[in-house]
């Protein structure tokens, strides 16, 4: 099977700042690749270059075999883009936005209207079709944004942080839409700051840091490298912390990390929680918090690169 997206040695500099420092990327047709990284890792720059919004300073890339610099008009006929910021017109209604895009893509007025109605229906936006976007909730706006990217039935879809800033419910809605696209066979390049999102949606994950690719693999492989889940304990009494730390080290075989009274260790064994609970109970130690969670982006980075992300993300991975 051919590659829908292929990039080699992409470099982009802004003055002295190197946003992309030689990135290679390959996305097979019909697959979803998640690009995971903190703010400033170069995710958005990569998408902007691949979507022909800016030119790379070095390196080359092609979409569906067409060079993004030499053949941008053909590339634009293959792609759809949903940016980080709403790329729909706030003052127009949902339907007007979609009809406008259909008209720009050369559909006759009647076909543009039919396509708009079909997409609004698919994205459960029919009721909101006549209202201006300014009145839409965050989730509705993103869904409309996605719908706008799909008017031309693109073969390759770029989703740049499609759920950043959304509440969990709205995030779930967007995920459902993306899953539907994937089932329909679209090729998707998805950028995200959330490991869970990449895990849920992507066939494979590429991890970016400081404009470089630092790791790639299937979600399962990466998670194994990171150590799967994390066991987190918060003893009720600060005085118990050293004793709990010793106990965790003994049971898990890892030395626990400690941050403001919370102890964490990689949980390789799913039975670890039960074992820890029994031992705490036996020692008469009360814990305010005891449970498993997915590693945060910071922890993924620590495990993969040996350092914290270049720019700390304010929202950790959802539990």
């Amino acid at each position, binding site marked *: *099977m051919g590659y829908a997206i292929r990039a080699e040695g992409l470099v982009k500099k802004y003055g002295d700042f190197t946003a992309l420092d030689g990135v290679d990327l390959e996305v097979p047709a019909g697959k979803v690749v998640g690009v995971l990284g903190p703010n400033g890792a170069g995710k958005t720059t990569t998408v902007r270059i691949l979507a022909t919004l800016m030119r790379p300073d070095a390196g080359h890339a092609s979409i569906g075999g067409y060079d993004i610099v030499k053949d941008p008009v053909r590339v634009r*006929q*293959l792609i759809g883009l949903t940016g980080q910021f709403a790329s729909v017109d706030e003052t127009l209604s949902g339907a007007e936005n979609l009809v406008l895009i259909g008209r720009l893509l050369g559909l006759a007025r009647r076909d543009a209207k039919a396509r708009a109605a079909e997409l609004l229906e698919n994205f459960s936006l029919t009721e909101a079709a006549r209202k201006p976007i300014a009145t839409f909730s965050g989730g509705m706006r993103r869904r409309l944004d996605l719908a706008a990217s799909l008017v031309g039935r693109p073969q390759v879809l770029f989703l740049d942080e499609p759920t950043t800033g959304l509440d969990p419910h709205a995030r779930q809605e967007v995920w459902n839409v993306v899953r539907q696209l994937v089932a329909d066979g679209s090729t998707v390049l998805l950028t995200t700051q959330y490991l869970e999102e990449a895990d849920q949606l992507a066939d494979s994950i590429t991890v970016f840091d400081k404009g470089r690719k630092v790791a790639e693999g299937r979600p399962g492989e990466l998670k194994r490298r990171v150590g799967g889940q994390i066991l987190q304990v918060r003893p009720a009494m600060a005085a118990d912390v050293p004793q709990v730390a010793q106990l965790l080290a003994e049971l898990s075989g890892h030395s626990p990390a400690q941050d403001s009274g919370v102890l964490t260790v990689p949980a390789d064994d799913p039975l670890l929680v039960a074992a820890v609970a029994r031992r705490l109970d036996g020692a008469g130690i009360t814990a305010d918090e005891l449970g498993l969670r997915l590693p945060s982006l910071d922890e993924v980075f620590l495990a993969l690169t040996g350092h914290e992300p270049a720019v700390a993300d304010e929202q950790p991975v959802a539990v």
Partner: protein
Amino acid sequence: MSTQTLSAPAELPGRIGLAQTAQHSLALAGRGVIKFMKSPMQLVDVILTPIISLLMFIYLFGDAMSGGDTHGYLQHVTPGVMVMAVFQASIGIGASLSADASTGIFDRFRSMPIARSSPLIGAVLADIVRYVACLATLVVLALIMGYRVGTNPVASLAAVALLIGFALSFSWISVFLGMLIKNPASVQGLMTILILPLTFASNVFVSDNKMADWLQAWSDVNPVSLVADAVRGLLNGGPVAGSLAGSLAWMAGVIVVFFPLAMRAYRKNAG
């Protein structure tokens, strides 16, 4: 939805033709017109400014400027105020495009297989709504105040077409600045400063022969004077050919210089 294999190379056109550029521009002009319809408050400035100008110049300064012949002055000033008003209406586009271009919607346009120039051309064309609103207001007010057209409907329509053409071509200066400068307020400020010497050092309010020699020399080649002369000729009667030729030369010149500049700035703007 989409299929797993991508289309064969030969199927996709690699360039966007002129006809498509026109089609895309018109679709985007439609977007602008819908926006005016939804928030008519955007038209308040182009309706109020000419009303205030005309009332002020006739009733406040009219006597002093005309030596008592207020009707004669109204006949002289009205075509000139029309030029000034559409000129002022044409400078707002830079500021609004400057704000618009930084939003995601322009990223979407840039990622679509449409002519690069079409979002700008579309916005310029949508402003015809502003010019029509502005001119309609002025005509009604001037007629109420006693202004009389001395020619025929065809000449009057030609005057309106000239005024709108003048605003459309000169708005590219504002578009250029809007693409160059990221701060909308600075764009508006710069344009306001730019049009002051053009509108006031012209024959809009005073006849050329009342000016100092150097000022008259400038006024003679000033596009505002030339268009005002042509509109006066078309509406009041009198010679048109020379001033019309001069006006059209200015309009063509401004487009030839500022359209490519605006497009270059727009491409760079994308980063």
